[in-house]
Each structure stands twice: as C-alpha cells, then as structure tokens.
C-alpha cells in the first residue's frame, strides 16, 4: 500500500488556484522530490499532506489517501493524528522553525507527548532518555549539554538537526522536508543531506521540496518538476536530470551556473561569442587589508588586484568576511591596517571629501536592492539620482537592463526581485563606473531569474568594459562568472588564482572541502546548448 496516494489535487486561496490538479504517490521508504521556483505551488502541496495548507485554503482532490485512509473525510482530530505520527515536517531555517523561546528538550519532547499507536512511545519518565537518543540519532554531539540549550545558542547545522529530531521523534513513516537546507552554508548543507539520506536508508519515506535541482539529485528516487501549480515533468532522478523532455526542465537545468556553463548564456544555453578584452591596467587593488570591530577581527591581511574588464570572484561561507571586503573596497569602512588604491589614487586613509570625486567610478549592487532604494522614489528618480538626467538617458539606462520606459514611474516595492536588481544595475551604470562591486547580487533570486541577471551582467561587462568584484557563497555562480577567484575563510584569503585552476585543481584543503560539499551532479548546459 502506498503511503500517500493523491489524484487531481487542487488548492485555492480566495478563489485563486495555486495548485491546479496534481497527482502524487509516495511508496514506503521512497524519496520523492518536488522541484520548482517560487510560486510554483510546491510548498502548499507539501503542507496539504498535513492538513496545513494554510488559513483560508480550499483543498480538493479526486483521491486523497494517507496510509490508506481517506483524508478528504478527516476532521481536525484525525488530522492531528496524521501530524507528527504519520508525517514529520522539517522546514527551512530552524532559527525560526523552532520556537526560539523553548529549549531543545521541550521542542523535541513535544512530539513525544501524546500517547499513540506506536508502542515505542515511552512513559513520561524516560522522555529525557528518548530525547537524548533522538539527538544522538541525528548526530548532535554532546546531546546531554544540548538539552537545555535554546535555538539561538546552536549553529545553523545543529539547529537543523534538532528540527529533524523533533520531526522523527514519533517515528513517522514519512518526513516532509520543505527547503531543509536553503539557508545553510554549503558544507553544512551536505551534512544535512547526508542525514536525510541516512533516514531514508533506515526505511523512512521522504518528500523533499526544493528550488534547487542539484540539492535533490543526490537523495531523490523520483523528481516532480512543478510550475504554476502543475507538474510539468516527472520521472526517475537520472531520467529527469539526464534526459529532460519538458522545455521548462531544460531551461531550469541550463540556468544553473557551473563550471560547464562558463562561456554560455544561462537563459538560453547559447555560446557567448563576443570576446571580452582583458587588459593589464589595474583599476582597484588592496594590500594587507585588515579590519576589526573592537577586538573581533573580521578581515585579516587581504590583498588583491583587479584589472580593467576583469571579474574577480570572491567565494566563502557566511562569516568569512566577504561583505567586509566589499565595504572596505567601497571605502565605507576604514581599514584597521592596509591600503586600497582605486584608479591609481589612494582610496583608503584619505578624507571622505577627497574620495567623493572618485566615488562614481566604483559602484555597488547588493543582495537586497530594495534596501538601497529610498522608499519614496520612483524608478526614474532612482536611476536619475539627483542628477536631472534627460529622459532619453534614463530610457537608455533602462534599456541596458532590459526594462522599458513604462517602468520609470513605478515604485520598486511593486516590482519583482529580478526587476529590482535590474533597476539597481541601471542606477549603477548611470555613473559609468570602472568597477562594479556585486555583493551576492543573485542570492535572493529564483534560478531562472538569476540566469537572466547573470547574463545581463556579462553582456554589460562585455559592452562597457567594467571590472567586477563578484561576491557569492555559491561556487557554481562564482565559477561561471569569474576570471580569477579569491577563496575566503574566517576573514582571510586562503587561496587565489585563475578560476579554472581553483575549481579544477584546488590547492587548499578548505577549497577542496567546499567543492566536495557542492551537491550534484547536474548534467549541465552541454546536453542541450549547441
């Protein structure tokens, strides 16, 4: 008997269908992945398996069997029996998915509390022991000391393990994991995926929800690709990744930046023909840069040079000092020691007044462009930026980034994430900068939008000859865009060199660790491009 057997599932909110008739079966011990971009309806689908599609939702199906029982007839009582005991839920980012005001022990024990059919449920006295066992099972070191800890006292990886422990506490035959690794660093992500694979090996079925095909590739038996509330393609993992039949799946695969995608446009897979001129002229350089907040050193002895029209990738996990590097390069932080030179002029250690004339030469785009927009401004006013640019110039700048003049009067709040980033780029271009600092510019975007923005940046760079410092936690993205790469860890540069050398022949053990943690393999652009 299938654990889950659903036909023609439809979920709507206030008359709008967000899931428009999908079928889903999960066999015991099987791992099924649903992959899709935001708004595809994948999370709603997953939550409707627990009767938690959300307030105001309307769930219909021609068949909805959970463990052989008809869930369409379930009342709140029966649903509560499903939750935790039939299926455990693991959400993204345990910092908010675990109650921040309660201890690890209380959160896990909550799943044990109710008496149930599973005889494994222990009497109250041994709850503590059971929680300890669970923590051990999910690989939390020193479980004894962790019992009384609160979520904020744990690292991201440990938190996610605790969340998984609470999901498997009542020993459900199914775990539903909704973007379980999205907020995590790549090495931690690899550990969590391994843990989920272990649960599967132990016989638990998995429903894995992700925006990232690469993440699910290593664990899933079958993949469903969702778009706009429909399943556009499904099949075995190898088949879907290796021989995608639906154009959307192909586009999605081609859009993933990686080593293989270098020299190709991500949005359509065509080869980039225009040769980017490389020059030896140094536009930005830094040597011996250090920075500390009080006693905490967040950057130490960083040095690099950036040539005209070149892209320098900076890769590292959270807390590695990437953003500090960006702020030092922008002259927004005063280095504790070391110097920055921009276009041959001293950039650090001089007054803001003497920096000001050079400021337009170095511009920045960041992960969340909305923060960098004055909330009262329209797109035109943002791009014009107090310089009374003529309308033709604004139109030209918007055209550069693939927007038309109809956007001029709109406010960034009403735009999509990708459009906002385009506006930020247009504004930066308005200054004809020699250097563009990109601080995680695509991290908040869906993969297909990310592909468009990366293509746009590549086109603009080829056309305008800007140099770029491209900061990202995503190794694939960095490899795709960079000529040369800095690998950062704990505020230091551990390795630097030509991109291909670093990624194909890493010298430093940390770089090797990072590369080994990248999930995959995804069959890249080669399969469809030329």
């Amino acid at each position: 008997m299938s654990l889950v057997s659903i036909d023609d599932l439809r979920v709507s909110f206030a008359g709008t269908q967000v899931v428009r008739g999908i079928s889903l079966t999960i066999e015991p011990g099987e791992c099924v992945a649903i992959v899709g971009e935001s708004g595809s309806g994948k999370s709603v689908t997953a939550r409707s398996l627990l009767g938690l599609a959300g307030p105001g939702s309307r769930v219909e199906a021609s068949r909805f069997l959970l463990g052989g029982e008809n869930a369409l007839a379930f009342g709140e009582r029966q649903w509560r029996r499903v939750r935790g005991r039939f299926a455990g839920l693991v959400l993204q980012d345990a910092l908010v998915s675990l109650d921040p005001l309660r201890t690890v022990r209380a959160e896990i024990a909550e799943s044990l509390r109710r008496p149930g059919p599973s005889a494994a449920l222990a009497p109250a006295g041994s709850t503590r022991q059971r929680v300890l066992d669970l923590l051990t099972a999910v690989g939390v070191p020193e479980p004894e000391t962790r019992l009384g800890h609160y979520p904020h006292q744990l690292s991201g990886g440990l938190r996610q393990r605790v969340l998984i422990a609470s999901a498997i506490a009542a020993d459900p035959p199914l775990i539903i994991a909704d973007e379980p690794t999205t907020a995590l660093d790549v090495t931690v992500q690899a550990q969590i995926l391994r843990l989920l694979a272990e649960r599967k090996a132990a016989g638990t079925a998995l429903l894995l929800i992700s925006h990232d095909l690469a993440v699910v590739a290593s664990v899933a038996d079958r993949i469903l690709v969702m778009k706009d509330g429909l399943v556009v393609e499904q099949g075995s993992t190898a088949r879907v990744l290796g021989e995608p039949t639906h154009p959307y799946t192909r586009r999605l695969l081609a859009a993933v930046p990686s080593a293989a995608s270098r020299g190709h446009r991500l949005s359509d897979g065509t080869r980039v023909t225009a040769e980017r001129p490389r020059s030896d002229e140094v536009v930005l350089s830094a040597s011996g840069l250090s920075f500390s907040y009080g006693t905490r050193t967040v950057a130490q002895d960083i040095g690099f040079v950036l040539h005209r029209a070149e892209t320098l990738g900076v890769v590292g996990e959270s807390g590695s000092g990437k953003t500090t590097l960006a702020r030092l390069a922008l002259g927004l932080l005063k280095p504790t020691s070391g110097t920055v030179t921009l276009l041959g002029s001293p950039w650090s250690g001089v007054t803001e007044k003497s920096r000001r004339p050079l400021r337009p030469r170095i511009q920045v785009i960041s992960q969340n462009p909305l923060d960098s927009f004055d909330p009262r401004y329209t797109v035109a006013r943002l791009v014009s930026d107090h310089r009374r640019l003529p309308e033709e110039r604004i139109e030209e700048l918007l055209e550069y980034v693939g927007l038309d003049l109809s956007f001029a009067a709109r406010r960034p709040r009403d735009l999509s994430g990708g459009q906002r980033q385009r506006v930020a780029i247009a504004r930066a271009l308005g200054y004809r900068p020699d250097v563009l600092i990109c601080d995680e510019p695509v991290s908040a975007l869906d993969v297909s939008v990310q592909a468009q923005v990366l293509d746009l940046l590549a086109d603009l760079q080829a056309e305008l000859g800007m140099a770029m410092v491209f900061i990202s936690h995503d190794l694939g993205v960095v490899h795709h865009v960079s000529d040369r790469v800095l690998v950062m860890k704990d505020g230091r540069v551990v390795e630097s060199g030509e991109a291909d050398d670093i990624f194909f022949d890493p010298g430093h053990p940390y770089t090797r660790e990072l590369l080994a943690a990248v999930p995959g393999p995804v069959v890249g652009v080669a399969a469809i491009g030329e």
Partner: protein
Amino acid sequence: MWAAATASWLALLVAPGDVTSILLGDGADTPEIRAAIAREWGLDQPQIVQYLSYLARLLQGDLGRSYTLQQGVGDLLAGQLGPTVELMLAATATGIVLALLLAVATAGRGRWLRGAVSGVQLAWVSVPPFLVGILLLFVFSFTLGWFPVSGARDTSALVLPALTLGLPIAGSLGQVLREGLERAQEQPFAVTARARGLTESALVVRHTLRHASLPAVTLAGMLTGSLLGGAIITESLYGRPGLGQLTLTAVTSQDLPVMMAIVILAAALYVLISTVLDLLYRIIDPRLRSA
C-alpha cells in the same frame, strides 16, 4: 531618579511667581517678615547651594516641607500612598485579566467577533478615564445602586475605580496581545508545532502566548505612567483619598515641594516597575539572558 529630581528642581527655578509670596500666604507683608521667611527656607542662599542641599536632603530621604500644609512632605505622601497603591494594583489586575481573556478568546477567530471586540477595545482605549468613571457611576451606582458613589470604606468602593482605571489598560494590552498572538501563529515555528499534532489551544499555551507577551510587557512599562496619571483623575472623580487629591491640592496652591516629591515618586515607581519588567523580559526570552 536623580534626573527627575534635578528636572523638577530646575522647573522650580524657572517658575514665575515668588515662592516667598506663596509662603507668606495671607499674612502681613513686610520686608522683615519676607527676609525671615527667606532665611528660614534657605532662599537667601545662592542657587547652587540650594540645589546641593536639596539633593543632600533628598539622599537622606527628606523630601522637604510643604509650603502650605506646614507638614513634612514625606509624611504627607506616606499618609496618602496606601489607597492609591491599592487602587493601582486592583486596576492592573483587572486590566491584565480582561486583556488576556479577550486576546486568547478572539485571536485568529472569525471576522465578526474580532471586529466587535476590537471595536470595544478601541472604545476602552479612546474614552478618557473620567468619562468611563462617570458612565460606570451612572449605571452601577445611580441606576443599579450596586456600588457606593464615593469614598474608600470597603472593597465594594474599590470596584468602580479599579474598573475605570483598568479598562483602558485592558484595551491597549488586549490589542497588543491579540496582534502578538496572531503574528506568532503565522510564524514558521507555529507551523512546525502544528505539524507535530498540537491542538490550537496547546499551541497558544505552550508557544504563542509567550511570544505575544513580549510586546505586552514592553507596553505594560509604558502604561505604568498612565496608571499614575489616571489614578489622579479617578480619585478626584470618586472622591477617594490618595495621592491624586494631594496632587490636585498641591497644583492649585502652587505647593511645589509636594509636586516635586510626587514627580520623584513617579520616577521611582517607573524605575521599580521597569526593573521588574526587565527581569520578566529576561525570564520570558532566553535570547536576552546570554546577551
């Protein structure tokens, strides 16, 4: 508190009107008597000396003497403190209980009930306390005759004043609690908790109420101010003895030492309550303990 003392002393300094005249009252007015009074009250000293000796006396717990009542301010306050504290405690309790009941009962419920209750709460917050008092008096004392009109003889005389003062608290506290509950119910951890099979009421008790109480505690700190202010008006309305009456007499007779003492008392009350709330905050939110 030192700041409050200094501020009120500075206020005294810039006060128009001559302190000696107030002290003089209706008595004979000759330069000799004026000089004598000034000497007796230390008014002939330079300002800075006056200020320092004021602070010194304050440190010893001496709040000075009333200009008009010819009595130590400390004794005056001590005599009137009891009924006011009683009133404030009763009002706080009333407010908190009502707020909790309404918030838990209505959070996330149907729009009709929520609309109605939020309307009632809006009224409680908006209606000035003296008006609530008059309304209560009219209904319960004059029309129904359940409670006495004035005085502080027994507990039944405390009911209406406590309600008068407590309803606005219940209103704003209840709103904050309800909004906090609803916000917490939409958080990912609430989804996780539901996914463990928790009932909605268990969710409230174990998870969301604690989250909702955080902004409520912050608000409670701000409400203590209005509590003392409201007590002044409530006491005047119900003719209850207490600090309110004392304040009003002091204001009308420009008895500044008494006013200053009351301001200092308010500051002390604030310090006390915010310390307690700070502690409470730390108990509720573990994230603040390690910080």
